[in-house]
Structures are given as C-alpha cells and as structure tokens.
C-alpha cells in the first residue's frame, strides 16, 4: 500500500473528502486567527447585551455584549491548539511506549507499561482529569496533560501489537543481524511501519481532545484564559432557558462541524490506510 494508492482511495471516498474539506476550512479559520485577522475582538464588550444577529454582530452578542461571532471564531484557534497539542503528544507518547513494550514484549518494560495502562483505564476518566486539573491548580496545561495521560494508552496498545508482529519479520531480523541497536531498529523499522495506526489515532485523539475540552470547561476545569466553545456552552446553559440561543447555536454548530469533519476524515483514513487493503 503506497501513498499513491492511499490517496487514490481517499479521493474515491466522498465522505472522507468532505471531512478533509471541513478540517482544512477550520484550519484556515484558525490560521486567520493566529495571524490576527479574525476574532481579535473576542473579549471586547462592544455591543448591548443579548443582541440578535445583525450586520455588526453576525451571530449576535452575549450577556456582556461581546461579539459571539468573534468568540466562536477565536475558539477555532483554541480548539486547534488543544487538539493539536494533545493529539501530537499523546500519539507520540503512545507510539514510543507502545513500540518499546511491543519490542520487549513479556519483559518487565512491557509488564509495567501494561500495568500502567490497566491502572489508567480503571480510573473513571473525568475523575482522573479533574484530579489532575486540581493537582496542577491553575496551570493552563493541566487539562492538556490530563488528556495526554489518558489518551496515549490506546495508541500504545495498537502500536505494541504491531511491534510484536514486526519483531518476527525477516527484514527486522536482518537488521538485527547487521548489528543495529534495538533503539535504532525501533526508530528505523518499527515506528515507520505503524504510521497508518498513528495517523488514525492522532485524528481520533484530536476529536476526543476538543470534545473533552467542552466538558471540562463546563465543569470549570478546562480553558482558563481565553475563550473556547466549552466556555461558550457553559455560558449558554443558563441563557438557553431564558430564551437566548445565540451562544449555544454558534458554539455547538461549529464544534459539531469540526468534530464531524475529523470523524469523517478519520474513517476515510482508516479505510485507506488499512494494510489489509479492505474496502468499507
């Protein structure tokens, strides 16, 4: 399965393409926020409170008179920052630990990794995340760390299985015979062969991260400074009951679109990268 075949497969997958377009669109939006073109006035109280959508405030304003459009757009950046950091770090961590555990399967390394994974899986997720957030009082990265600490296990499990398979492959044995160190073999021969797992896992972690952010921000232990869809939704929980829906609709619609895009992309990638070359 070469890159070309994968790409051809992806091109044939209409849902996957839609997903890719959505993700790219949001990435573009995030870039405009990073570049300072959009969403910069997210914290200014520039209008009256709870204005309905109008020419100045496309999505209306919130209680403080802040522009909901600017806030929801700025939140794209927040979502990408959280998603990217968590997806990259947790996938990398999972890949490294998983490869080591798989390579040294049945050794003490493997044993302790599996133990740690078992332990982390046995603690209720939100409790664990909340606990980390509390233990690291007020640090903006507490939430990221909490997610990374739980998300790596799935990747590690998959990579471990793959590494165990690869260990017995001839070319890996050949590399061993040539006297390459274990670390070098893992780096050169094992990890590159798990890319199909890592790519899919990274998209899954990305989605999980931005969905978790929403819940954590609602619980008050998520984003601390700035604005995010989770904070907007948290604001909206009281507003909707008084009939103000702008915050809720803006945040939930954008959140839904981005997550949907990533889910579609992730599915398509899973199909396209499946080494068994299977179809849907």
């Amino acid at each position, binding site marked *: 399965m070469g890159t070309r075949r994968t790409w051809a497969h992806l091109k044939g997958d209409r*849902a996957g393409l839609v997903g890719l377009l959505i993700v790219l669109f949001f990435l573009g939006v995030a870039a405009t926020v990073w570049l300072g073109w959009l969403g910069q006035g997210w914290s200014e109280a520039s209008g009256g409170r709870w204005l309905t959508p109008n020419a100045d405030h496309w999505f209306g304003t919130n209680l403080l008179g802040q522009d909901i459009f600017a806030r929801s757009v700025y939140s794209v950046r927040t979502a990408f920052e959280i998603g990217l950091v968590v997806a990259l770090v947790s996938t990398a961590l999972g890949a490294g630990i998983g490869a080591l555990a798989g390579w040294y399967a049945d050794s003490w390394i493997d044993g302790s990794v599996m*133990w*740690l994974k*078992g*332990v*982390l*899986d*046995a*603690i*209720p*997720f*939100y*409790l*664990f995340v*909340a*606990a*980390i957030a*509390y*233990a*690291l009082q007020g640090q903006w990265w507490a939430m990221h760390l909490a997610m990374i600490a739980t998300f790596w296990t799935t990747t590690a499990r998959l990579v471990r299985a793959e590494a165990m398979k690869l260990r017995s492959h001839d070319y890996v044995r050949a590399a061993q015979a040539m006297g390459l160190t274990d670390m070098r073999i893992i780096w050169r021969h094992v990890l590159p062969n798990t890319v199909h797992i890592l790519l899919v896992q990274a998209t899954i972690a990305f*989605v999980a991260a931005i*969905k978790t952010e*929403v*819940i954590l921000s*609602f*619980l*008050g232990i998520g984003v601390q400074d700035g604005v995010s869809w*989770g904070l907007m*939704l948290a604001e*909206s*929980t009281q507003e*909707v*009951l008084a*009939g103000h*829906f702008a915050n*809720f609709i803006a945040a*939930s619609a954008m*959140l*839904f679109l981005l*997550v*949907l895009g990533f*889910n*579609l992309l992730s*599915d398509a990638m899973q199909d396209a990268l499946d080494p068994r070359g299977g179809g*849907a």
Partner: protein
Amino acid sequence: MREVMRPLARKLFQALLLVVGVTLISFLLMVWFGPDQTYTLIGKNATTEQIAEVRHQLGYDDPFLLRYGEYLLELVTLDLGVSNASGESVRTLLARTVPISLVLMIPGFVLGNGVGIALGLASAHRRGRRSDRLITALSVTGMSISFLVVLIAFQVLFSTPYGLDLFPVRGWRVSGWTSYLHYVTVPTLALLFVTFGYNTRFYRALFIEEIGRDHIRAARALGASESVILWKHVLKNSMVPIITRIMFSIPLVVISGSLLIESYFGIPGIGQATFEAITSGDQPVLKAVVGLTAVAFVAIQFLTELLCRRLDPRLG
C-alpha cells in the same frame, strides 16, 4: 488442581497490583495533591493556629505513607469515614446515592446497548446497502455531537416552553413509577443519543466480522433463516466482546457518565456527590469513590473473564 490454580493465582496477583496502582495514583492526585478543604471549614477571622488545627484534624499534616496506608486500610475494612463537608458517613452517602445513579443510568445503558446491538445487526446485515449507509452516517453524526450539547438541547427541547415542555427541567423527586419515568426520560434519551453512535459503530464492526465467518456461510448454505443466523449464530458468537464491553463500561458509566448527567440535571446520585466532593474537596468521599471504583473495576474484570469462559467453549 495446580493447573487450575496457577493461572487463578496469577490473575489474583495481577488484580492486586492493579488495585495498588489505581489507589496509589488516585491517592497521589486526589488526596495528596488534591483539593484542600481547610479554608471552607474555618470560620471568619480564623487565626493561623486555628487553621493549623483544622488541617491537623483533617489529617493533612500526616506523612504520605501513613495517609496512604490509612486509605488502604479504609478500603479493606470498608470503614470509609465521614464526609468532611456534611458529616454524613460515607457509607450512608453511598447507600443513598448509588441506587439513584443505578436507576438513573440503567435504562439509558440498557437501551443504548440494545439499540446499538439492533442497529449494528441491521447495519452489518444489510452491509453496503442504503439502510447501512444511513445508519453509519447517523452514527458518525451521533459521535460528532458533544454530550454537553445534547444535554442542553434535550433540556430545551423536552423540558422548556421553547420546546415540548413535557418533563421537569431538573431534579429527582421520585416516589413511584410515574414520577420515575417523568424524571428519567430526558436523561435517558440524552444518554441514548450520545451513546448510540459509538455503540452502533462498535457492534456493527463486530457483527460484520462475525457475519463474514465461514460457519455463517455454511449455515446459510444449509438453509438457516436470516433471523436464526443473526440472533443465534452471530449474536452468540459475539457474546464475549459484547459482555466485555458492557461489563467494562459499568463502573465508568456509573461514575463518569452520571457525573455529567447528574450535575447537569441536579440528580442526587453518586455522580453529583462525587462532583460536589471534587468541587468542595471532600476527600473522604473522593477516596471512597475512587477506591471502590478501582476495586469494582478489577472485580468486574475477574467476573467478565469467568462469564466469557462460560459463554465461549473455546475459552473454557
């Protein structure tokens, strides 16, 4: 005899290690570095001595090993102490809240898995056809909606004048079947909505794998009807992963799932109690919840294995 005992002993030892790990990590995070309740328990104009006194009473100034040891001892003896916040004994608290969480979560959990299995079967069975594509599209959509969004939307939709206004906005004043259904419906629907995507997808993949097996083709070749194939052969062969999934989600659903639902709908179950324990730093409650969850998790792992052995003759 020894042949049987050795894997069992090994399993027990692993379970023990797991319990030690879970309790250690949760202790470290939630108790050692956890929230400090001293400052909500002191009165106005407290002096440093009074603060130190409260800290001392709460046991915050004891050394790590002592506190961890006490924690383990509490779990072993099930002497869980009293809530720092209310003075209620933790056992009473658990006895009061856990049943509520159970009756709150069970309908959604059962329906969620039931619907997931049914849709998964339907989808796997009609794989590649329009209804399969529809179900798959719906489950991806379902998976893309945040739980919080569903909670807010369903509350507006079912319980406010902006929607159907049929059910209570929140609370739990249950005194019989009618009031039970009255309060449990919206949380159940929300839970169902949030989980059906994940469940359907999981079960669909599982059933597709099972349907592709030779013995299914053989059964068909011998004239077995589709319902026999699906309900008898496919389902029975899928029992091990189904049971594993269901069993493993029980402790997490009861705690994590209800944490959000209960705190959102204001239902006095274990989830809300835990949430309150987190936000007020009520360590005896937190310790009990986490410790018991870990123990339950390990016990369930054990039970699942036994159950699977019964269900699949190849494992027995």
